[in-house]
């Protein structure tokens, strides 16, 4: 995957993810609609590739107003990933040469890899994650399960213990998937399934779409480093 194609694919996928997020705000109080109607238009322009550098810049500026409005990200990690991708795309579009564009896109890919590895690391050093207690707590009392029926999973400690170790080992092993294009494709498939499960069980639908938008960067980095 060459840089130009990977960047364009990222723009399109980010545009759709932003469009999905922004449309969700249309039924919100009026003060929010003022921020998200322009974001709908800009996301559409990003998808069709119209004046991309200026559209990205406008989205970054609008992103600052949205951060100010909510005194931080509206939906935590998914908004942060969206802003990271957007800022990288914006910088790439204004960079004078290919080398700097590669550095910035490589930084994005590195962060995608770290998003899994660090998440795995902070879990494995925590004994409550290692013995499955943390995941049990997520189902037992956290605000995340989308329906009360899902809280019953807390009654299956062995299943949750296995699931915890599965997530931890996958997240820690994720950087190794970069070794070949085939292993990376498998790794990204598992990662996407993991985000889909989080969207399904915990309603984190924005994470699913925004992380997918970051995958072209890591596919490009794999080709750039290993050339296969």
């Amino acid at each position, binding site marked *: 995957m060459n840089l130009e194609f990977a960047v364009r694919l990222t723009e399109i996928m980010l545009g759709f993810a932003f469009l999905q997020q922004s449309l*969700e705000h249309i039924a919100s109080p009026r003060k929010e609609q003022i921020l998200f109607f322009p974001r709908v238009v800009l996301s559409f322009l990003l998808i069709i590739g119209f004046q991309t550098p200026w559209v990205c810049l406008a989205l970054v500026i609008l992103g600052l107003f949205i951060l100010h409005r909510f005194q931080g990200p*509206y939906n935590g*990690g998914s908004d942060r990933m969206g802003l990271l991708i957007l800022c990288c795309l914006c910088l790439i579009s204004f960079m004078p040469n290919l080398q700097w564009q590669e550095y910035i896109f490589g930084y994005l890919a590195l962060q995608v890899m770290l998003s899994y590895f660090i998440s795995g690391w902070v879990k494995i050093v925590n004994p409550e994650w290692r013995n499955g207690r*943390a995941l049990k707590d997520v189902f037992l009392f956290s*605000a995340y*399960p989308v329906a009360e029926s899902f809280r019953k999973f807390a009654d299956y400690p062995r299943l949750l213990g296995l699931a915890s170790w599965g997530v931890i080992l996958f997240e820690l092993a994720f950087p190794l998937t970069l070794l070949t294009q085939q292993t990376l494709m498998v790794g990204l498939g598992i990662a996407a399934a993991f985000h*889909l499960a989080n969207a399904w069980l915990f309603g984190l639908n924005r994470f699913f779409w925004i992380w997918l938008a970051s995958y072209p960067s890591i596919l490009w980095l794999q080709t750039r480093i290993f050339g296969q």
Partner: protein
Amino acid sequence: MLHSLQLLLPALIPSWRFFDVISPSPRIEFILLKSVQDAGDQWHQLRPNPARLSFTTMLHRLLWNPDWNESLFLVSCAERMIENPTKDTEQEILDRIKFDLKKNGSQVRKINYLQFRLVFISRDRDGLRKEILFTSAIHPCAEDAVS
């Protein structure tokens, strides 16, 4: 704008510490009062989870999930109210309770006052523990605040 740039920094240099510890989890409860002196005890949980969801609803929510995402934002607001309480955050929660009441066709016009509290649930030795960590002042139910 400087403050917004400070808020942007964690996105540019993220920590990625998702779910490193499972902290006490907030629920927002509110009560509708007829007067400031009204000593009501009927607290309602804001947006309680449904007992179950159908397969099609969950599939639909992959693309369209505004209420749930707003609920997650309210969880962040509740946590922020304990870590770094501000009038803006309190108002944010209050406005959304009023917006919900209005949207659900509640009898908010017959109710003069509103109060909310933040209940944090955590694991105890024998089960779950509930702690009320914040109770708001009593606020009038003026509808202009929810526009």
